[in-house]
């Protein structure tokens, strides 16, 4: 639907975006995720037509967009500031883009009322922008764009200005809205949780490049690089080295973890390659006594514990490791029967498939 081919953007000597290629399918909820300054907003504005490309091509429905100005592109945008027109009522804001469609007054009124129902603000048509709360402005901005029946709706950090509870509520509503109208959504966000919650697919960006495009589960479970692994959720990293004693087997000698067996077919790296083994805190199992029969085990002492409500995160000092290892334990019992104390000796175990092997970078 939206096809971005080798697109670059240069501001003077600053390369904001380099060689980005992304394909967004019809009806997909697609997110561009990255820290501020990674080029995600610039990319979105290039799709909308507010920034030119310095190379490559953007196509919407097979049409090259290079010479199409913003007001002729079949996409609409929800701005970060919402950009609600202050001199117009909610109704006139929502109907703003309908002028060229030469509809009758009553048809236009009908369409606006439908939109007000859709965004759950019935009866708000005559309000002015300054009479609306942040969440309401955001809904009006959504309605104003959706009434145009765009091929894709572009959202620039639309939930950034809302407080946490409202943001979570709007995330659910946004997801439901997207499913009900079936329009392709392209969302820019720096909030990984938001991206994971909302998206069918996510492109992780850093320094103007796309690091990985995958489903939320794909990104979380099988990151392709250390940067992605570190950006999405919490991750423990262990530096190591590949050894392939026979063609059918592979092992990694990693600091802290010791020697671990890995799937020889699945491993890309050659014998002797430097790698990083990534292990999620919740994939580690914490025990207060040495395990009886576990292949993968490391011992350490608890440095600190963070209480996070639904779980505790323990930071464990493991011999041979500079950084403490994070272990996440769900709080299934009220006062944590299995709570461990600071300074206590503990043992961490994990299953073979918990490890993700990444290139050393």
């Amino acid at each position: 639907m939206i096809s971005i081919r080798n697109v670059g953007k240069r501001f003077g000597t600053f390369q904001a975006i380099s060689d980005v290629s992304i394909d967004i399918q019809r009806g997909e909820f697609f997110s561009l995720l990255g820290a501020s300054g990674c080029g995600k907003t610039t990319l979105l504005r290039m799709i909308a037509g507010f920034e030119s490309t310095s190379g490559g091509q953007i196509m919407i429905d097979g049409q090259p967009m290079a010479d199409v100005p913003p007001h002729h592109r079949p996409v609409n945008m929800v701005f970060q500031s919402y950009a609600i027109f202050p001199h117009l009522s909610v109704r006139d804001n929502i109907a703003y883009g309908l002028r060229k469609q030469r509809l009758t007054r009553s048809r236009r009124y009908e369409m606006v009322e439908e939109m007000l129902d859709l965004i759950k603000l019935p009866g708000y048509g005559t309000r002015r922008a300054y009479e609306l709360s942040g969440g309401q402005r955001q809904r009006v901005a959504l309605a104003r764009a959706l009434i145009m029946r765009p091929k894709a709706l572009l959202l620039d950090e639309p939930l950034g200005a809302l407080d946490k509870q409202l943001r979570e509520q709007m995330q659910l509503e946004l997801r439901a809205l997207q499913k009900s109208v079936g329009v392709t959504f392209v969302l820019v966000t720096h909030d990984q949780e938001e991206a994971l919650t909302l998206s069918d697919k996510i492109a992780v960006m850093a320094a103007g490049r796309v690091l990985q495009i995958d489903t939320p589960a794909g990104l979380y479970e099988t990151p392709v690089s250390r940067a992605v692994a570190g950006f999405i959720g919490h991750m423990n990293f262990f530096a190591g080295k590949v050894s392939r004693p026979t063609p059918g087997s592979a092992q990694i000698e990693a600091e802290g973890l010791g020697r671990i067996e890995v799937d020889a077919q699945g491993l890309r790296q050659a014998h002797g390659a430097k790698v990083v083994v990534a292990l999620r805190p919740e994939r580690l199992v914490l025990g207060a006594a040495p395990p009886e029969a576990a292949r993968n085990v490391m011992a350490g002492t608890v440095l600190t514990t963070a209480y996070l409500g639904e779980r505790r995160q323990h930071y464990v000092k493991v011999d041979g490791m500079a950084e403490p290892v994070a272990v996440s334990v769900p709080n299934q019992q009220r006062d944590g029967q299995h709570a461990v104390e600071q300074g206590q000796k503990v043992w961490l175990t994990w299953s073979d498939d918990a490890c993700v092997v990444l290139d050393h970078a």
Partner: protein
Amino acid sequence: MKPGTYISQPNTSLRLYAVVFMLFIYLPLLILPVFSFNSGLYVRFPLEGFTFNWYLALLNREPVFAALGNSIRVGLTVSILSTVIAVFAAKAIARNRLPGSGPIVGVIMLPLVVPGIIFGVALLVLMSRLGVPLSLYTVTLGHIVVCLPFAIATLLPRFEGFDLSMEEASADLGENGWITFWRITFPIVAPGIVASLLMCFTISFDEFIMAFFLGGTHATLPMYIWGQLRFPTQFPSMLALSSLIILTSFIVIFLSLWIGRIGLPKSAQSGIFK
């Protein structure tokens, strides 16, 4: 606790100061209307009697109306031209990341602090060098120089407070630049434009020095008054005329300040005319 918050406590000495301040500025001005209704010829107490005659006398003088016509024509031209120029200037200063926009604003605001007589003489020399005959056109030119800083100071907060994504949103919803200007930019900036028009008109209407240097034989209203001051018998009528001018100016300036603040957020209501 005293009523009011920490920074808005009632303060008697400050109030007294404010009253004295207002008296100092406006008491001398009050002399004009008071004596314009006095039946005596001379400005001295005690007042002799109440009369409308000085005002009625104005109606029978043709030169008054000629000068009034000149002032209005110059005022309208000056206010429109200054405002148009100021709209572009304010837009450029507020929008484009103009290199050195600080010094540029400084230069534009310079006529506020340079004595009018210096600008008047400079323009007079320039005009005579260029061989341009003095007329109402040269007065208009001088007035534009005087009015521009005021016009820009009125319009700049409008453009600085303008969220550029408004225009982008309009483009995004299918409107081209021209329609976007009329549907979005102009309505949001309009109160500033009206305020600037009114402000420039009053300034031009009251201005004397430029008119004196650049007017040649064509008198504006302030020049006419100046000319008549030589004749003692005309003095009360000039008081009447001046009172009328002050009244009009007050009304127009109040209108302009009031309109200029419509729809501006509190934080953007800064600048010279707060």
